[in-house]
C-alpha cells in the first residue's frame, strides 16, 4: 500500500506548489479580496454602507479634479456613467460570463427606449401606461427579441452570434427609420418619467435634473447586481462559466448548454431593454439617431476594459467609458478610436481587464473550510500565502465512513449486480467513407470493471463518443438500464447515467477544483433559473449539499487539500483525479474512463488502480479504455478487444492474454508493453 496516493508525483508537486497556491483569490486584487472575506460580517456591512452613502452622494459632492470639464453638467454626467454601468452590467452577462459575443447590444437598448416611448409619449397612438410600468414591459419585449434572435443562432458556433447581433443592431436602427409607426427622425417627445413633484411644483424627474435620475439608476444597478450575484453563485452561473471555458465538456457534464446560453442572452437583453427605457425617460425624447453600431462597440469596450466576467469590473468599465470623454473634452472626438484601440490592446496584453478578479461561484463559500475539516480533517488550501507542502491525503486515510456515505449516491439502478447494465448492440460509426466502428456488440455488467483495449485507431474513443452522444452512430443501439441513449442530447445521456473523463484532460481551468465538481453535481440538481435568481429554498438546500458532497468527492479521490485551487493550476495527477471526481459527481450508473493513466509513472498507476477498485467497490460500474497492459490486466474483470473498428475478442484478462488473435493483432511478441 502506498502511503500517499501521489507518492511518485511528490517531486513534480514541489515544483508546481508555487502555482498551486494560486487559489480562487487569484488576480491583482486577490489579496485584498482574501482580507475582505476574513472580516466579520458586521464590518463588511459597515464598509458597504459607507461606500453606498458615498456613491449616492457623488453628484452632490462634485469633487474637484474628478468633476467634468465646463460644458458638461456634472450631475447629468453622473447619470450617464450610471447608465453605461447598467448597460455594461447586462452585456457582461452575455460576453463576460457566457462568452457569447453580442455586437448589437444597442439594438436591445433601442427596443427598450422605443417601448418606453410608444407607451408613454403623447406622440404615440398606443394606449398609455405609467412610465414605471414600461420598465418591466421593456424587459419582456427585449427578451422576446433576444430569444427570437438567439434560438436560430445559439445552436451554432459563437461566431455567428457576433455577426447576427451586429446585423440586428443595425436593422433596429434602420427599421426605426423605415417603419412609419416609429416616426423616424421626428421621434417621440415627452416620454414619461417616474411621478413626483418638488415643493416648487416642478417635476422631480425632469430631463435637466441629473441627480434624481442618477439615484434611480444606481438603485436599479444595486438590485441588478444582487440578483446577478444570486445567479452567479448557482448552477446557472457555473453553467455559464463552464460553457465559456469548454462548451463540449460542459455539455458532457450534464449542462444543457443551449438552454443556459439562451438564458444568458435573454437576461442580457432584458437589462439592455431596461437601460433603454431608463435612458428614454431621462432624455424624454426618442428618435432613430442614437442607436448606431458604434455605440454597441463602446458598450463592448466598457465590458472588456473593466474586466470581462466580473460585474464590478463591468460597472467600472461602463462608468469609465462614459466618464473619460466628459472629463477630458479634448479627447472626446477621438473616443471611438481610443476605445476601439483599447479593445485590441486589452485583448493582446491584458485579456482579463482592469479588474481581473474572478467571481465567486458557490453560494456558501464561507462554509468550505469548516465542512472540509469536519469531513476530511483537513483545511483546503485557502490561504493565499500558506505553503501547501502538506502531504496529500491517501485514499484510505481520506475515505472515512461519512465521506463514503456521501459519495455513494442513492441512485436507483434497475439492473441487479452481475446483470447487463449497458448493452452495445451492433454499433457502427462512419465518417464519410471511413468506418471507424464496425458492427460492434458487447455488454457491460453491473458492478464490473470492463476494459476496452485495442491498438491506436481501433475505435475505442469512437465507441465512447457514440455512447455519450458526441457522434451519431450510423447503425446499432446503446442501452443503459434498459433505456436507449441513441438520439439523445449529450447532457441528457449524462443525466441518464453515463459519465466520462477525457483522454486529454478537459477541466474548466478558471474554476476551482471544488467548483468543477459542483458543475458535475448540478446535473442532478433541479433548481431552475428563477429559483436561483430569488434564492428559493430548494436552491439553498442544493447549494449547501453541493459543498458537502463536492468536498467528499474530492476527499474520495484524494485531492481535498486543493479544493480551492484553480483547476488549471493543479498538478497533472491531481487534474486526472479531479476529472474522475467531476464525472462521479454526476451520479453515473456507468463511469467511462478514457486512458486515465496516460502520462503517469508506474507508482502513480498503482495508486490509480487502487482508486478505480475503490470506486467500483463503492457500487459503480466502470468502462476503462487503457493502453497500459499491466494496468488493464491488473484491474479489470473482463476485457473487450477492438481492432480496426471490429471486436476481435472478449473475456477475462487471463483468456485475453492467451488469445492468439489478440496476441497477433495487438500485443505482438511483447505481451507487456509497459508504457502508454
Amino acid at each position: 500500500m502506498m502511503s500517499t496516493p501521489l507518492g511518485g508525483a511528490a517531486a513534480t508537486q514541489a515544483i508546481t506548489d508555487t502555482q498551486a497556491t494560486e487559489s480562487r483569490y487569484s488576480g491583482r486584487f486577490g489579496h485584498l479580496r482574501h482580507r475582505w472575506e476574513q472580516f466579520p460580517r458586521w464590518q463588511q456591512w459597515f464598509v458597504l454602507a459607507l461606500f453606498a452613502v458615498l456613491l449616492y452622494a457623488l453628484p452632490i459632492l462634485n469633487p474637484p479634479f474628478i468633476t467634468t470639464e465646463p460644458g458638461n453638467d456634472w450631475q447629468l454626467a453622473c447619470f450617464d456613467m450610471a447608465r453605461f454601468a447598467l448597460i455594461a452590467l447586462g452585456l457582461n452577462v452575455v460576453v463576460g460570463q457566457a462568452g457569447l459575443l453580442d455586437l448589437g447590444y444597442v439594438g436591445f437598448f433601442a427596443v427598450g427606449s422605443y417601448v418606453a416611448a410608444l407607451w408613454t409619449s403623447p406622440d404615440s397612438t398606443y394606449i398609455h401606461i405609467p412610465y414605471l410600468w414600461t420598465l418591466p414591459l421593456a424587459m419582456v419585449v427585449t427578451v422576446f427579441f433576444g430569444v427570437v434572435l438567439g434560438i436560430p443562432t445559439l445552436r451554432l458556433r459563437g461566431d455567428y452570434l457576433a455577426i447576427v447581433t451586429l446585423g440586428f443592431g443595425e436593422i433596429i436602427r434602420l427599421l426605426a427609420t423605415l417603419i412609419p409607426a416609429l416616426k423616424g427622425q421626428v421621434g417621440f417627445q415627452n416620454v414619461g418619467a417616474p411621478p413626483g413633484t418638488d415643493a416648487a411644483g416642478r417635476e422631480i424627474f425632469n430631463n435637466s435634473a441629473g441627480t434624481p435620475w442618477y439615484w434611480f439608476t444606481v438603485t436599479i444597478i444595486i438590485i441588478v447586481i444582487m440578483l446577478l450575484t444570486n445567479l452567479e453563485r448557482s448552477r446557472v452561473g457555473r453553467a455559464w462559466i463552464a460553457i465559456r471555458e469548454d462548451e463540449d465538456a460542459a455539455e458532457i457534464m450534464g449542462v444543457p448548454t443551449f438552454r443556459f446560453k439562451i438564458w444568458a442572452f435573454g437576461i442580457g437583453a432584458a437589462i439592455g431593454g431596461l437601460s433603454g427605457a431608463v435612458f428614454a425617460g431621462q432624455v424624454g425624447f426618442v428618435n432613430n439617431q442614437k442607436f448606431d453600431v458604434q455605440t454597441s462597440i463602446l458598450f463592448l469596450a466598457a465590458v472588456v476594459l473593466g474586466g470581462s466576467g466580473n460585474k464590478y469590473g463591468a460597472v467600472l468599465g461602463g462608468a469609465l467609458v462614459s466618464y473619460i470623454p466628459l472629463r477630458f473634452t479634448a479627447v472626446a472626438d477621438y473616443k471611438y478610436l481610443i476605445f476601439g484601440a483599447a479593445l485590441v490592446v486589452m485583448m493582446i496584453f491584458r485579456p482579463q481587464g482592469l479588474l481581473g478578479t474572478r467571481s465567486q461561484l458557490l453560494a456558501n463559500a464561507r462554509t468550505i473550510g469548516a465542512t472540509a475539516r469536519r469531513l476530511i480533517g483537513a483545511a483546503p488550501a485557502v490561504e493565499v500565502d500558506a505553503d501547501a507542502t502538506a502531504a496529500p491525503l491517501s485514499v484510505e486515510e481520506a475515505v472515512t465512513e461519512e465521506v463514503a456515505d456521501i459519495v455513494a449516491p442513492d441512485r436507483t439502478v434497475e439492473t441487479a449486480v452481475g446483470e447487463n447494465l449497458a448493452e452495445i448492440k451492433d454499433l457502427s460509426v462512419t465518417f464519410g467513407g471511413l468506418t471507424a466502428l464496425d458492427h460492434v456488440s458487447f455488454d457491460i455488467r453491473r458492478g464490473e470493471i470492463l476494459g476496452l483495449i485495442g491498438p491506436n485507431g481501433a475505435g475505442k474513443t469512437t465507441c465512447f463518443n457514440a455512447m455519450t452522444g458526441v457522434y451519431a452512430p450510423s447503425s446499432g443501439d446503446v442501452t443503459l438500464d434498459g433505456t436507449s441513449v441513441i438520439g439523445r442530447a449529450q447532457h441528457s445521456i449524462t443525466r441518464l447515467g453515463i459519465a466520462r473523463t477525457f483522454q486529454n484532460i478537459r477541466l474548466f481551468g478558471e474554476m476551482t477544483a471544488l467548483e468543477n465538481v459542483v458543475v458535475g453535481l448540478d446535473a442532478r440538481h433541479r433548481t431552475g433559473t428563477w429559483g436561483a435568481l430569488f434564492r428559493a429554498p430548494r436552491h439553498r438546500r442544493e447549494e449547501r449539499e453541493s459543498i458537502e458532497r463536492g468536498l467528499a468527492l474530492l476527499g474520495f479521490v484524494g485531492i481535498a487539500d486543493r479544493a480551492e485551487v484553480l483547476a488549471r493550476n493543479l498538478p497533472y495527477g491531481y487534474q486526472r483525479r479531479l476529472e474522475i471526481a467531476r464525472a462521479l459527481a454526476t451520479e453515473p450508473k456507468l463511469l467511462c474512463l478514457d486512458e486515465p493513466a496516460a502520462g503517469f509513472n508506474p507508482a502513480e498507476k498503482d495508486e490509480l488502480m487502487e482508486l478505480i477498485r475503490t470506486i467500483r467497490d463503492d457500487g459503480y460500474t466502470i468502462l476503462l479504455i487503457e493502453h497500459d497492459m499491466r494496468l488493464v490486466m491488473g484491474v479489470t474483470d473482463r476485457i473487450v478487444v477492438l481492432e480496426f473498428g471490429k471486436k476481435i475478442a472478449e473475456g477475462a484478462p487471463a483468456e485475453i492474454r492467451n488469445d492468439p488473435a489478440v496476441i497477433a493483432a495487438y500485443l505482438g511478441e511483447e505481451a507487456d508493453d509497459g508504457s502508454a
Partner: protein
Amino acid sequence: MLDPQTAFVAADEWIRLDWAALAGNFWSATFDGLTFGAIYALVALGYTLVYGVLNLINFAHSEVFIVGAYAVVFTLTGLGFGPSPPTFSVVGIIGALVLACLFAMLASAVTAFILERVAYRPLRHRSAPRLAFLITAIGMSFVIQYLIFIWRGPNPEPAVIMFQPIPIFDVFGTIIDSQQIIIVVAAVVMMVFVDQLIRRTKLGRGIRAVAQDPDTATLMGVNKERIIVATFIIGGVLAGAAALFYVMKIPSGVLYYGGFVLGIKAFTAAVLGGIGNVRGALLGGFLLGLIGNYGQILLGNAQWTDVVSFVVLVLVLMIRPEGILGTNLSKVRA
C-alpha cells in the same frame, strides 16, 4: 383599446408591399442585383478564405475593402477623373482603371497584411480563446474606421465617374449596359481564377491543408504562418478589385463607415453559399444581390436592402446553417 378600423391603419403604418412595382421593374432589378451580387461575392471571398483557414470572422475585412475604395478614388482623382464623365479616350480610361485597380489591390492587401501582423498573430502565438480573436477583430475594424474618419472627416469623398455606361443588350425590354457586363464578367473571371488557385496550385494545396488541420499540415512541412499571410493577402487583393467595381457602381459611396454594411452583406453571401466554400461565395453573392434588390423594390425604399439581407442571414442560419453548397474549404478536391 383599438377598434378594428384603427388597428387596420396601424398595421398599414408598419409595412407595405408594392407588388406592382416589383413586376414592372423585375428585369432591371435582376440585372442590377447581379451586378451588386458580383461585388458582394468578391468581398465574401475574403471572409470565406480567412474563415476557412483560421475559423475566424475577420470583421475588419470590411475596412480592408474600404481602404481599397479610397485608393481607387485617390488614384482616379489624381488622374483627372471627377464628378462628370471623363473625356479621355477608351484606351486611356481602361489604362486608368487598371492602374486604379492595382493600387486598390495593393492598398487592401497591405492593410490585410498589417492587420494579421499587428492583431491576430500575437493572439495566435498566445493561443488566445476564440472570443479574444473576435473582439480584436471588431476592435481593429473600429480603429481603421476612425483613423479614416479623423483623416477624411464625416463626409463621402467627391464622386468619381469612371465612364458613361453604354447600352449593350436589350433583354425583355430592359437595357443591360456596359458597366453591368464589365463588373459581372470581371468578377466571375477572378472567382474562377481563385477557385483554380485553391484547387490546382501548391499554395492552394497548402491553404486546404491548413484549413483541414493546421497542426498536421505543419508537421507535413507546410509553413502555416506563410499560408495564413497568403490567405489574408488574397482576400485583400480581391477586396481591392471589389473596391474598383463598387466605386464604378456607386461613385459617391466612399466614406469612413462605407465598408460596414457591405461587409455584413458580403458575410451573409458567404454564409448563404456555404462559408469556407469559394464557389458558394459566388452563388451566395448573386443570390443576395437579387434578393436584396427585389426586396427593396417590393418594400419601396433602398434601405430595405440591408434589412432584407439580414433577414436572409438569420433564415439561412435557422434552416440550413451550412449554406447552399455546404462544403467547406478543407473538403475541396483537387
